[in-house]
C-alpha cells in the first residue's frame, strides 16, 4: 500500500514508464517459480541458496533502483512544471534563456 505522497508521485504516467523494468523483473520471477517447481538436479543447501539468491538479489536491486529513480524523476518533473520549464532534453538551457539569466553565456576566454 503506497502512502499518499507516493501515490501522487507514482501517477499513471510514471507507472507506465516504469513498466519497462517490470518485464525483466517478470522474467526473473518466472524463473524463480519454475526453478522452485521443477527441480531436476535436486536440492543442496549451499547451491540452492546461491541459485535463488542470484535471482532474488538481482531482482530486488532492480526493484529498488527502479523505485528510487522513478521517484526522483517524477519529483523533478513536478518541479519543472511548477517553474513552467520544458521537460525536453534540449530545453533546459532554452527555458532558462527565457525565464532567468542564461546558463551558458559567459565566454571562457573572457
Amino acid at each position, binding site marked *: 500500500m503506497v502512502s499518499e505522497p507516493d501515490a501522487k508521485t507514482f501517477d499513471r504516467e510514471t507507472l507506465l514508464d516504469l513498466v*519497462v523494468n517490470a518485464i525483466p523483473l517478470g522474467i526473473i520471477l518466472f524463473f524463480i517459480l519454475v*526453478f522452485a517447481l521443477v527441480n531436476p538436479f535436486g536440492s543442496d543447501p549451499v547451491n540452492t541458496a*546461491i541459485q535463488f539468491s542470484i535471482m532474488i538479489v*538481482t531482482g530486488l536491486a532492480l526493484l529498488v533502483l527502479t523505485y528510487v529513480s522513478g521517484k526522483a*524523476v517524477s519529483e523533478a518533473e513536478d518541479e519543472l512544471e511548477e517553474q513552467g520549464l520544458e521537460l525536453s532534453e534540449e530545453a533546459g538551457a532554452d527555458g532558462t534563456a527565457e525565464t532567468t539569466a542564461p*546558463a551558458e553565456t559567459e565566454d571562457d576566454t573572457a
Partner: protein
Amino acid sequence: MAVEQLALTVLMGILLVAVAGLVSRMVDWRSYTPLGGASAIGGSGYGGGHAEKPAGIVRWFTTVDHKDIGILYGIYALVAFFWGGAAVLLMRAELAAPGFDIMEAAFYNSLLTSHGITMLFLFGTPIIAAFSNYFIPLLIGADDMAFPRINAIAFWLLPPGAILIWAGFFTAPLGLGIDPAQTSWTMYTPLSAEQANAGVDLMLLGLHLTGVSATMGAINFIATIFTERGDDVNWANLDIFSWTILTQSALILFAFPLLGSALIMLLLDRNFATTFFAVEGGSPILWQHLFWFFGHPEVYILVLPPMGLVSWILPKFSGRKLFGFKFVVYSTLAIGVLSFGVWAHHMFSTGMDPRIRASFMAVSLAIAIPSAVKTFNWITTMWNGRLRLTAPMLFCIGFISNFVIGGITGVFLAAIPVDLVLHDTYYVVGHFHYIVMGMIAFAGMGALYYWFPIVTGRMYQRTLAKWHFWLSMIGTNITFFAFLVLGYLGMPRRYATYQFDGAIAPLAQVTTLHQISTVGAFIIGIGQVVWAWNMVQSWYEGPEVEDADPWNLKDDGMFGREFQWFEAQKLAADGGEEEVATDGGGVRPDGGYRRAVRRVDDE
C-alpha cells in the same frame, strides 16, 4: 595457527585505522578547491576558469580544462585504436592460410592479447571518456568537472599504463628476456600465473593503472552530474548521454576495484608464491569468477555510453524527439543493475553446479529486454521521421543494424544448451565483435563527426566521411558474419592455425571463410585510414563553421545544450554577448511549422 591468523588480521586492521587517522590529521582536505581556478559556488554559466593557458605543449601537460582533457583522451584512444588495429591486421594476414606462414604462434598470441586489451581498455574506455569529458559539463550546464585536477591525474595515469601494457613489444628485441604477454585479454589462470615472463607482470601493472584511472574518472562524473548541474537541469530533463555516463560510472565504481584486487592477487601468485588461483589453493576458477564479475559489467561500461550517444544523435537527424525517452533511461538503469547478476554466463562450460548455472541463464535472458527496448525506441524514433543521412546519422543507423545481429546472437549464447555447443568458437568472437566494433566504434565515429564542428570549429569532408562509413559497415559485416559461420563450423577461437582433422570441420570452407574475414578486416582498415586522413586534414584545412548550427537543428527544436554553448562562444567571439540571452534556439519560433523541403549540409 588460527589464533596467529586472527592476531595478524587484528593487527592489520589496527594498522590501517592508524594510517587513515594519520592521513586525515596531516591533510587538510578543505584546502582542495573543487575547481581549477574558477569559483565553485555561485558561478552562473560556463566560466570554466581556464582564461589563461600557457602556450604550446606546456598547455597540454598542465591543463585541467575538461575540454582539453577530452581532446587528450580522444587522441590517446585513437593512437591505441591504430595499435590494436595494426595488431589484428597482422593476425588476419596470418589466418589467411591454414599453416604458420608469416609469424610464429608466440607472436600471434602476443598480438591477440595486445589487440584485446588495447581495444577494450586503451581504446574503448578512453574514447568514451573523451566525449564525456568534453561534453558532459556542457550538456548539464556545469562550469567544469567537479574535480578538474583529479580529472587530469586520471588521464595522465593512462599513458604509463599503455606503455606498461605494450612494454613486452619494446623490450623483446633488446634481448632482455621480457616478452609480450601471451595470456589473452581474459588472463585465465593457471596460464597467466605460470608464464614466467616479466612482460606479463608489466601488463598487469599497466592494467592496474588504467583501472585506477577509470575509477577516478567515474567518481568525478558521479560527483559532477549530481552536484554541478546548472539550475535549469534536473533529473527530469537530464540528457540521455549524461544518464548513460552516470550509470556507466556507477558500474565502474563497483567493477574496476574488483579487477584491481584480482590483478594484485594474480601478481602475488606470480611473484610471491601465494595460492589464490592455484589448484591447491583458491582454484583457477576463482580467477574466472572474479574476472567476469568485473568483466561482464565492463561490457556494459563500454556499451551504455555509445547507446547514449546514439540516443542523443539519432533524433537530431530524424526530425523527432527520442521516442520513449524515459523508457531508455529506466532500461539503462536496469541494464546497470542486472549486469552484476550475469557474470557466470561466460563460464557455463566450466563444470559449475547446474542449479547455479540455470540462475545465471535466467538473469542473462532478462537483461536482453532492456537492450531490445532501446532498439525498438531507436527504430520508432526514425519511423515516419524526416531522416537526413549525414555521416553521424549513417553511423547511428549502422550501429542499430549491427546491434540487432550482435544482440540477438548474444541471446542465443545466454541459453546454456546453445552455449555449450558454441563456447570458445568463432561464433562468440563474431557476436562480441558485432558489439564492440559494430556498435561501440560506430557510435564513437558518429559522435566524432557530429561534434567535429564544436571541437575544431571546422567541418569535415563529407564525401570521405561517407566512404569511411560504407567501408566500415561493409567490412564489419563481411568480417564478423564470416566469424559467426566459422563458429557454427566449429572453428575454435584464439588459434594461430587451423590445420585440423577434416573429420572435425570442413577445412576447405573454414579456409574460405577465414580468407573472407581477412578481406573484410582490410576493408575496415582502409576505411579507418580514410577517416584518419579526413580528421587530420579537415582539422587543419577544413572550411570554418560560420553558423553555430551546422546541422540545422533549430528547425526541429533540437538545438542541444552543447550547441547552445557553441553558439554563445561564437557570439561572444564576435562581441555580441548581449544577443545570447534572446537566442536560445531550442524552441521553434513558428510553433511547430516544418518546411517540406530544406537544404541539408550533409546528405
